[in-house]
């Protein structure tokens, strides 16, 4: 599959009255045509900032892309002027946000809000615009689309509003859709519907999706590939199976381990990762996760680990993968997952042999 978006060493800083916050510290990843890439991380890990940076929607001041490039269709988006970027936004790359209650303009009709993009990028007006709008409303599964045209956002429910937001994003058939936690603010049942909708649309239109979330359940449901983010950096990248069944970074272990499962032994405490992410005003030396990492070694506090390749599709930035690193035993939950679901993998086999390497 060909790559349509390529981010290299993206670095974003925010200048606040308290100092400069390094929100994103050198993030690199590829997005392939038609796939869904999930970016997972805690609040404050920098995932939202990354997605907004791709669209060049970081307000400047106080934010600034200080380093890196975003290659899309042969051009570096970081270097484009705002005017040039306006042609990309909405047409080639579209975005949907978290809160459907505030994403829509309260004083504009639904029709106008969808048609704006159509007019701007495709020059559609009048009946042509109306026709296309109705098409879109049907595509996102809104009943009785005719009636919706003249309605205002406050007259619709949260789930419907999010569908409208999706319709707006898809209006001009973008090649990439960035979904920033689109289901976090919705009820669980509506969540499922929206996820189904997105998968459905992807099948029909072949749009690549970057899905930002902190919910591993959603990742399991939607993603082809996963990138795990912590303290402004990506720490593990792989296919969804590799991440869930053969994870290598202690943080990923922590995330997966803290997911409650019906099969869990209720007498045990639910393992949570102790502590909080570091303050990015003063980024730490070495591995940012080290203070919370029970597998930390001295080198973790002194040098930042580079990415170590595991397979063609899987890599992780942890010193544990360095040839000089000792054998470590991943947490029980991870062992169980690997042994149960992927008993034939190298990972599972090495666990049985007594330790990772």
């Amino acid at each position, binding site marked *: 599959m060909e790559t349509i978006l390529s981010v290299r060493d993206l670095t974003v800083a925010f200048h606040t009255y308290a100092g400069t916050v390094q929100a994103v510290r050198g993030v690199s990843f590829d997005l392939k045509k038609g796939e869904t890439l999930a970016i997972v991380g805690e609040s404050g890990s920098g995932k939202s900032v990354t997605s907004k940076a791709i*669209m060049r*929607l970081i307000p400047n*001041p106080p934010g600034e892309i200080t380093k890196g490039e975003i290659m899309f269709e042969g051009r570096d988006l970081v270097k484009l002027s*705002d*005017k040039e970027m*306006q*042609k*990309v*936004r*909405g*047409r080639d790359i*579209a*975005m949907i*946000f978290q*809160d459907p209650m*505030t*994403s*829509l*303009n*309260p*004083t*504009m009709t639904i029709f106008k809000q969808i048609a*704006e*993009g159509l007019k*701007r*990028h495709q020059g559609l007006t009048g009946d042509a615009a109306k026709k296309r709008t109705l098409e879109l409303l049907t595509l996102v599964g809104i009943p009785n689309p005719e009636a919706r045209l003249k309605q*205002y956002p*406050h*007259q*619709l*429910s949260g789930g419907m509003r999010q569908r409208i*937001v999706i319709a*707006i*994003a898809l209006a001009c058939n973008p090649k990439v859709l960035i979904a920033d936690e689109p289901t976090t603010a919705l009820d669980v049942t509506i969540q499922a519907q929206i996820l189904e909708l997105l998968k459905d649309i992807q099948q029909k239109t072949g749009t690549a999706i970057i899905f930002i979330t902190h919910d591993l359940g959603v990742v399991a449901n939607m993603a082809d590939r996963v990138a795990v983010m912590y303290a402004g950096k990506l720490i593990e990248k792989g296919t969804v199976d590799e991440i869930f069944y053969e994870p290598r970074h202690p943080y990923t272990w922590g995330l997966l381990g803290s997911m409650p499962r019906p099969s869990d032994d209720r007498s045990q405490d639910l393992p949570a990762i102790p502590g909080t992410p570091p303050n990015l005003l003063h980024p730490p030396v070495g591995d940012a996760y080290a203070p919370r990492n029970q597998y930390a070694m001295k080198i973790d506090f002194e040098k930042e680990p580079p990415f170590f390749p595991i397979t063609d599709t899987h890599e992780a930035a942890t010193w544990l993968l360095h040839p000089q690193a000792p054998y470590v035993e991943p947490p029980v939950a991870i062992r169980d997952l690997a042994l149960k679901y992927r008993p034939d993998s190298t990972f599972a086999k090495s666990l049985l042999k007594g330790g990772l390497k």
Partner: protein
Amino acid sequence: MGRYLAQRLVYGVLTFLLIASFTFFLMDLLPGSPFQNQEKLSPEQLDILRDKYNLNDPLPQRYAAYMVNLVQGDLGVSFKYDSRPVTDLIMERIGPSAQLGVQALVLGVLLGLVLGVVAALRHNTAVDYGAMFISVLGISVPSFVFASLLQYYIGVKWGVLPVAFWESPAHTILPTVSLSLGVTASIARFVRTEMLEVTGQDYVTLAKAKGLDGQSITWKHMVRNALIPAITILGPMTAALITGTFVIEKIFAVPGLGELFVSSITQNDYTVIMGTTLFFSAVFIFMILLVDILYGVVDPRIRLGGSK
């Protein structure tokens, strides 16, 4: 929406009646009599005059008479202006005051809007600071100080514009500008605050994500939403305008209601004081009602209700 309006209307009428009664009782308590300046009258003559104006009747009777007359549009007669009906006096002087008020309002709103929008768009730049400095000046410099200075420098010293009276359109310039200062400043500040508030909203970011250009976003998404709350300050602004006319008309010798009010106070012309007070109150209450209606019409969330 209809119920909402009906409710506001009832409040309006109630308030007006309250003010009318209140005014009546206040006037009753005023020391001195309207005939204070006619020292040449003997006590008996004074009594006859008082009888003539029904000033010797018991309180409840006078109150009732007052209210009945009020409903019929009769505000009594002036003591100072040769027994001319107060209503006539008011009607004569509405013209200049209304013109002055409307001109100042329109000028102030337009200028204020532009200033506020521009300041918000160029937030934290010299333009922003400059515009805000002007608006702080505008609300800190009392209109009468501004008017006096304008009159002195532009009117007297440089002789560019007429200094006083209300004879030609040119005569209206200085008073209008003086009166509009406060309006411009308040609106500029308010619009700027609202615009900044709107800038941070998700739907503005979404509009940008759609690839819309700056102008579209500013006018169709930001200004429209920022202006709606701005309507709410038009009510208190009317009050400020009315009180502004008191001093502006005095300084520029404009033959308007404000001037009438102020001079009737110094002359203890009770009926005129009461009449103009009531008139101003009525205008104010009416404006508040108008603003409420306008707000309901402009904001679709109120107009259509039915949030799910």
